[in-house]
């Protein structure tokens, strides 16, 4: 073995070691999620179940409240936020891009920074009062609106790059051919920006799916609560969690996000997410 082969072998070994350590660090906390749901004797340890069982899931499905939370409320809230954010952000960034607005870039930056200053935690008090005064406490609409407001600046920021990169020639041709602005947007521009819209939609959905703070502050009755809060319905009166049920529920709750990640990764790769705010 010559020096080059030795060098390559050493650096390769180091990389493998590093990957194993890092991989373990990031994977270990999640292992429990893979074993506990299928174990009727589950506790907080990671143990391979003696008998692989779906009984926990059965029990979870018996909890009408939690199931409704996951399969109905999450979808309503997630879907609502997704549609609203995608629509408003697309319209806004398209308008920003195709109209002459002086200082446009500065505006977007200020918007982003402003939304970082008025963060979710800082704004939760006035937002609560606002929703309270609008009579929207304990409604889906209240939650959807607040979440949309929070996600909008970043969504516009993401869409802006997409929209800017589309050449205007198609749209100009349509306008010259006589289409009205909105018609042109619907028939020509929107199909072109669709990939960007999909990205923003998925991102908004994932954010809304996992949210805890806003729903917990703005919702009261169990019928409206999403899965993140419904977790606590699997706790006993004493305040301890029922591990078998919690783990199964967590598993179900996570699946959609995993699927979405796989789809996005397969179609786009994750590189552009690093481009946000860089």
């Amino acid at each position, binding site marked *: 073995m*010559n*020096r*080059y082969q030795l*060098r390559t072998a050493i650096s390769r070994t180091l990389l493998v070691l590093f990957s194993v350590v890092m991989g373990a660090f990031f994977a270990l906390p999640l292992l429990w999620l893979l074993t506990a749901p299928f174990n009727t004797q589950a506790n907080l340890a990671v143990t391979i179940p003696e008998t692989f069982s779906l009984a926990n899931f059965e029990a979870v499905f018996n909890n009408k409240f939690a199931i409704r939370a996951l399969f109905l409320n999450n979808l309503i809230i997630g879907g609502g936020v997704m549609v609203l954010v995608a629509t408003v952000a697309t319209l806004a960034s398209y308008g920003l891009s195709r109209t002459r607005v002086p200082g446009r870039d500065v505006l977007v930056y200020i918007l982003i920074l402003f939304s970082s200053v008025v963060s979710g935690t800082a704004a939760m008090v006035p937002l609560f009062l606002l929703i309270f005064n609008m009579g929207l406490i304990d409604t889906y609409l209240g939650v959807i609106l607040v979440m949309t407001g929070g996600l909008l600046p970043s969504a516009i920021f993401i869409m802006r790059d997409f929209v800017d990169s589309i050449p205007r020639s198609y749209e100009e041709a349509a306008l010259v051919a006589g289409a009205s602005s909105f018609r042109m947007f619907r028939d020509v521009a929107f199909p072109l920006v669709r990939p960007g819209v999909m990205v923003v939609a998925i991102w908004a959905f994932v954010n809304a799916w996992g949210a805890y703070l806003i729903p917990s502050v703005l919702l009261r009755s169990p019928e409206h609560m999403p899965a993140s809060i419904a977790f606590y319905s699997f706790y006993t009166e004493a305040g301890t969690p029922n591990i078998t049920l919690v783990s199964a529920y967590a598993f179900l709750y996570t699946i959609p996000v995993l699927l979405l990640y796989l789809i996005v990764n397969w179609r786009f790769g994750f590189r552009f997410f690093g481009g946000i705010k860089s």
Partner: protein
Amino acid sequence: MSQITFENVVKRFGSVVAVDHVSLTIGEGEFVALLGPSGCGKTTTLRLIAGLEIADNGRITIGDRDVTYLAPAARDVAMVFQDYALYPHMTILENIGYPLKVRGIGKQERAERVTEVARELQIANLLERRPSQLSGGQQQRASVARAVVHQAVAFLFDEPLSNLDAQLRLEARAFLKHLQNELGATSVYVTHDQAEAMALADRIVVMRLGKIMQIGAPLDVYRNPTNTFVASFIGSPPMNLLSGKALIGQGQFVMDDGETVIDMHQVYQRLSNPPQENESITLGIRPEHITIHTEPQPFAIPSKLYVVQPMGGETLVNVRVGSKLVTVRLFQDEPPSLPEDVWLEPALEWSFVYGADGERIQ
């Protein structure tokens, strides 16, 4: 300065063989151009010399050292990249002086040596600026200056003029050649531009799909292309190549269209290994080696006038031979008035015959 040799070097990327059993020797102080289309392996060959790629098989030596497995730092070569690789966060002075800084040479001495080289390359007044403040041509010279300051045993150039516009490219070309003459530096120069290779190199290595097609001095390669690839790649406008079949018995050549017949027995007579009857061959003749006649000549090829292109210093005439367009180069600035029917007489000693495999039949 050192000699560089390749002995049967192979480099693969996955299933693609980028460098396919290449052997060559570059002499001390010699300027060798690696020429070919994209994907021919010329850049990989250069990177193998630099150590940016490591060979899978074979041996590479620089001077009397076997460098096949050495890291780039250990090989003591200097390289100029197509994008110049000038660091935006350093001044030009710092950029050019970087090879010296890496060797621990002190700031004062660095400044002196850099200024000296910068003066030679006429960028001494730009040393305090950043790369973004320099023009393309100046950046290119700064990149070369860094290679000179390095005082390595060989210079490697990876298409260093490609990013310059046409006018600048010609100036820079002349400058590079002058510099290499002065320094007597062993240089390996990668390019896809055959005119550049012709103008700059002592020898040209024509490559294709990882293999060497021909090595020779520019005029050699121009006058004596040993295969159809080299024949068509070198020279602008390119050599006329007509493919068809050899009718040895009748001393003729019939083109692929099956109709156009050319009298060839004078050409065939000069071959010591004439092609077989009905063998697929290609006839090659450079545009400047054809005489146009307005009246039928024995052994001349009948053709139809297509267009006349006055180029300023010369005139190009395109004619149709069968279904092919043939270019003729006339060293006159006044375009002749030509009738529709003309006869082409190729110069015998410049008429080349290539076999079915593309190799020259002598």
